[in-house]
């Protein structure tokens, strides 16, 4: 007699005796979740529109630049200049992604569910920060890679041409990393202050864009030193300053002048490091307070 198939048994509650993963796996899970959130993956269709619009634009620009270069035979923009020129898009991407990552959790009250788990308090903001920085880096680095592929396949110099392109690309990817880290830490700190996403987005745009007039004012002051240090006042120009000091001709071609920072390059680098570490410290402090509530 054939056994009846497809019978559902209610086996009741099952205790779990399998492995419980450690801190690293938990951090990884939170990081990946954050990275997916930044691009709207696993979210509603509405949440996907903006991130993928930005991704579409930067990729289209990269493709267009590659096509032009293949036609006229010379680069319109270096890899690093591409990152510089796309910075305003990065600002908007941060303004959308950072509130999505942290403000939403503050507002919905989900944080107690995280902090009542074996997740160290600092891991939550750090995983989110790393996720946002990775998203920004992919946003800037991905199109550069597209440009690199285009250049590599159309190079007339064989392998040495490819190698030369690669040497141009790698520092620019690091430069994109600098953009990513500075923008992510500033953006996430601002977003972590409020549970209202609109306020957070506005705050982030304000911090990045409203500081440029200060730079403008300082750079027309009668003192040359003040002029050369003026670009410290805004995150975008700060990154540009570090870039033109560290990358030199990769960022600044002969016919156009880069950010005129004079001999203050190292100062810019130090300030960038201080800015990032200051933001991270404030972020951690913020979450020490939030977790106890």
């Amino acid at each position, binding site marked *: 007699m054939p056994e009846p198939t497809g019978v559902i048994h209610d086996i009741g509650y099952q205790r779990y005796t399998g*492995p419980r993963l450690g801190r690293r796996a938990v951090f990884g899970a939170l990081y990946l979740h954050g990275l997916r959130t930044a691009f709207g993956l696993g979210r509603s269709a509405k949440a996907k529109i903006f991130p993928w619009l930005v991704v579409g634009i930067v990729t289209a620009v990269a493709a267009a630049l590659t096509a032009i270069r293949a036609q006229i035979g010379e680069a319109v923009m270096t890899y690093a200049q591409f990152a510089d020129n796309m910075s305003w898009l990065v600002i908007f991407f941060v303004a959308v992604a950072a509130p999505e990552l942290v403000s939403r959790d503050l507002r919905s009250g989900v944080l107690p569910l995280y902090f009542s788990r074996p997740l160290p308090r600092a891991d939550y903001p750090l995983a989110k920060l790393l996720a946002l920085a990775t998203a920004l880096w992919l946003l800037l680095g991905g199109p550069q890679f597209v440009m690199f592929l285009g250049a590599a396949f159309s190079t007339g110099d064989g392998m040495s041409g490819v190698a030369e392109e690669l040497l141009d690309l790698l520092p620019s990817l690091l430069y994109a990393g600098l953009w990513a880290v500075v923008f992510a830490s500033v953006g996430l700190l601002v977003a972590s202050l409020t549970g209202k996403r609109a306020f957070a987005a506005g705050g982030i745009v304000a911090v990045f864009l409203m500081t440029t007039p200060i730079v403008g004012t300082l750079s027309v002051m009668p003192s040359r030193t003040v002029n050369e240090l003026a670009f410290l006042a805004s995150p975008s120009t700060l990154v540009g300053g570090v870039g033109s000091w560290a990358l030199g001709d990769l960022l600044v071609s002969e016919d156009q002048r880069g950010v005129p920072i004079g001999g203050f390059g190292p100062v810019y680098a130090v300030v960038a490091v201080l800015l990032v570490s200051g933001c991270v410290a404030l972020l951690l402090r913020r979450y020490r307070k939030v977790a106890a509530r």
Partner: protein
Amino acid sequence: MTLIATESLTKTYGGGVTALADLTVAVEPGIIGLVGANGAGKSTLIKILLGLLTPTSGRARVLGLDPTTDSARVRARVGYMPEHDALPPDLSAAELVTHLGRISGLPRTVARERASEALRHVGLYEERYRPVGGYSTGMKQRVKLAQALVHDPDLLLLDEPTNGLDPAGRDAMLTLVHRIGTEFGISVLVCSHLLGEVERICDTLVAIDGGRLLRADHISAMTSATDVLAVEVSEGTEELAARLAALGLPVRRDGRLLLVELVDDATYDLILGAVAELDLPLHRLDQRRHRVAELFATREPSHA
């Protein structure tokens, strides 16, 4: 084994507000009711047990571990359901509970399996794939309970699980909590400001007020000694009272009612015998379970 123990636990907040004052209590595994008015210190106690707050002085132990120094290990074995809304509206229950299961250290596939199991146990089936934003309050409470269960904890801390539910929803939630405590074999600490609810499902009751312990005991010890029989006759109340007193039963008058302490089943026979002998029309004879609330009400002045 002692499930939860505190030793002169005190928590004073920055502004000089004392949330817990010299609280010493120890409870055994089972379902524990933690009752107290709003602001009595229930949530503060839970947060200390989770290691989210550091006590100002005193010590606490949960499952034999110190939550202040060993918080990660405590939290790995404890599930927490907060009082307030805690669910992001645009995620589905399945996604959220899976994600939180992974944050508790479950491997990816295990987290997914256990999330749907936990949601099934709390009574959420197909709706678990819809965004939480469209759920009713009752469903949201169930999701909050499921996320506390997903990593198979040894102890559940439930902060006001019946908050915002209608009477039917409250009953369903209490039945569920009772099932978790008995069938699932997970100890549960249920916080509530409604004594009547908690006393129905718990084995042990801990009552706090103003951060101080009022009483902690087995529920049976609190209620058994105080059961009384209420007798009502339409006439001859005085005579019956005199007769019962003569039979050696302590009788109290409560309006038209006679309250007789229930010693054992023989008390019924004695009362019925007395009523029959006097040939009085008996209106009612029923057992009155003293609500635990009355116990606390009579005890409170001594603490004030």
